[in-house]
């Protein structure tokens, strides 16, 4: 390492046209914390930058496919384009930022970390969310927040039909209109703590267009589930 300065070490470029997805992900796994990496010519390929537990700063040039940045536990990933299904699926920590739109199931099952979609997200955004945060600057499609158990969604635009269907303990904030609420989802009173939380999230996501005191809070009416898991942590 003596001959490599930190500045040189932090600039790595990998071409998705020259390397297979497996080779890309294997190469990423070898890089030390703090490395800045650019993946070029993504061209819609699936499973890019998945399963990483190091603190890398990854930029994906172009449009990415399914499961981009999935299972991540550490890296900060930016996609300079749009993504396919399940961007940031099962994220544990770190961030995934998509500059364009995201297809279905963005941020599905994320346990932690922050998923930011700067465009719109399609159907089922934040489905089965387990503690992570999904922030969408634009609109989300139908059945978003479906069965979300824990965590937060911030929707800067409008929400499609059946928002928050069968919601557990996750909370959804919507700045725009809601086409319809799903079963067991309800609009709840916005507290000062909610406003503070929305401000904090909007700042973290870099959304300047959201008025925190004007969002709608959607939570669970708790008539569909009978667990008391979150009451005394017995499960």
């Amino acid at each position, binding site marked *: 390492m003596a001959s490599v300065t930190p500045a040189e070490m932090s600039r790595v470029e990998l071409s998705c046209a020259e390397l297979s997805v497996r080779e890309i992900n294997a190469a990423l796994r070898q890089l030390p914390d703090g490395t800045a990496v650019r993946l070029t010519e993504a*061209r*819609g390929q*699936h499973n890019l930058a998945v399963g990483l537990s190091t603190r890398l700063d990854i930029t994906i040039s172009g*449009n990415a*496919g399914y499961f981009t940045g999935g299972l991540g536990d550490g890296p900060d990933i930016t996609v300079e384009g749009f993504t396919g299904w399940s961007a940031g699926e099962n994220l544990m920590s770190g961030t995934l930022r998509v500059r364009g*739109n995201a*297809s*279905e199931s963005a941020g599905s099952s994320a346990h932690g970390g922050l998923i930011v979609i700067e465009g719109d997200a399609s159907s089922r955004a934040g489905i089965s969310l387990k503690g992570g945060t999904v922030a969408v600057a634009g609109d989300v*499609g139908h059945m978003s927040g479906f069965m979300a158990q824990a965590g937060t969604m911030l929707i800067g635009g409008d929400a499609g039909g059946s928002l928050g269907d069968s919601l557990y303990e996750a909370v959804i904030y919507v700045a725009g209109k809601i086409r319809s609420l799903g079963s067991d989802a309800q609009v709840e009173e916005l507290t000062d703590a909610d406003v503070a939380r929305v401000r904090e999230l909007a700042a973290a996501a870099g959304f300047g267009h959201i008025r925190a005191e004007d969002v709608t809070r959607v939570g669970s009416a708790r008539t569909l589930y009978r667990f008391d898991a979150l009451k005394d942590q017995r499960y």
Partner: protein
Amino acid sequence: MCGIAGLQITNPGLRPRLGELLVPMLGLLAGRGPDSTGVAIYRDEAPPGATRTKYSLRAPRDGYDWDGLARALDEAGGTGPPEVRRRGRDAVLVTGLAPERFRDLLAGIDAQVGMFGFGAAIEVYKDTGPAPEVCARYGVDRMAGYQGIGHTRMATESAVTTEHSHPFAVAPDLALVHNGSFSNYAGIRRDLTDAGVRFDTDNDSEVAARYIARELAAGADLAEAVRRMMKAFDGFYTLLVATRDSLAVVRDSFACKPMVIARTADYVAVGSEYVALADLPGIEKAEVFEPAPEELYTWPA
């Protein structure tokens, strides 16, 4: 899973490259369905006013005597010898014989010969096997045309055979490919059968194709026919339906079967995944979007 792809080319300069562009799209979707592959290629060749029909036929065995079949059709039909275009072991016969008469004559001459599709513009090629293999078998990459749709199948509802492969092209110039599975097709199939509709297979997607064909025959346009189908059918679907003069995309209300649409001044391209569209010329400037659930998208050819 299954993969579906389609390309409608509006720029005439690009039409000679239809097959060259469509085959890699299907190749990239082969992973979604390696069981069988099929395409419907649309190209108009007949001078205006001419009534010649192209019949996409399946050989009952290797080395089939297509010239012999053409002679027999000429003798029996009396409209002149059909032009024979060999495609792999199969062939397209071009003749002035009208579809019902052609079908009757064919059944009398050799009932073993299958028919994949027929019409003024459509040609259908399909077989078991992954996309690159099947497309090479028919030389699809060298085919010109203004519109094409294709399918890579992962079978769920019925057997893996050539006949069960998509597209289902059951009416003049109509072709349908389907990603998904219908749940109430058996009942609809019984109703259609009672009404005199005949089926080639026990496949669920064929029922949707025959349903749309019946509505078209009753005077509906493609959009209306597909809307009626959506009312009647329950299940998961992303459908791509082509006629001589249009292309349509529709997804069910859950929209759990994917589809991406890309539009440029030169073409409309659709595919199950963006990766299938990523190599098309000018894609970086395309308007790319995902079709909304239960919304019908159509483009005139």
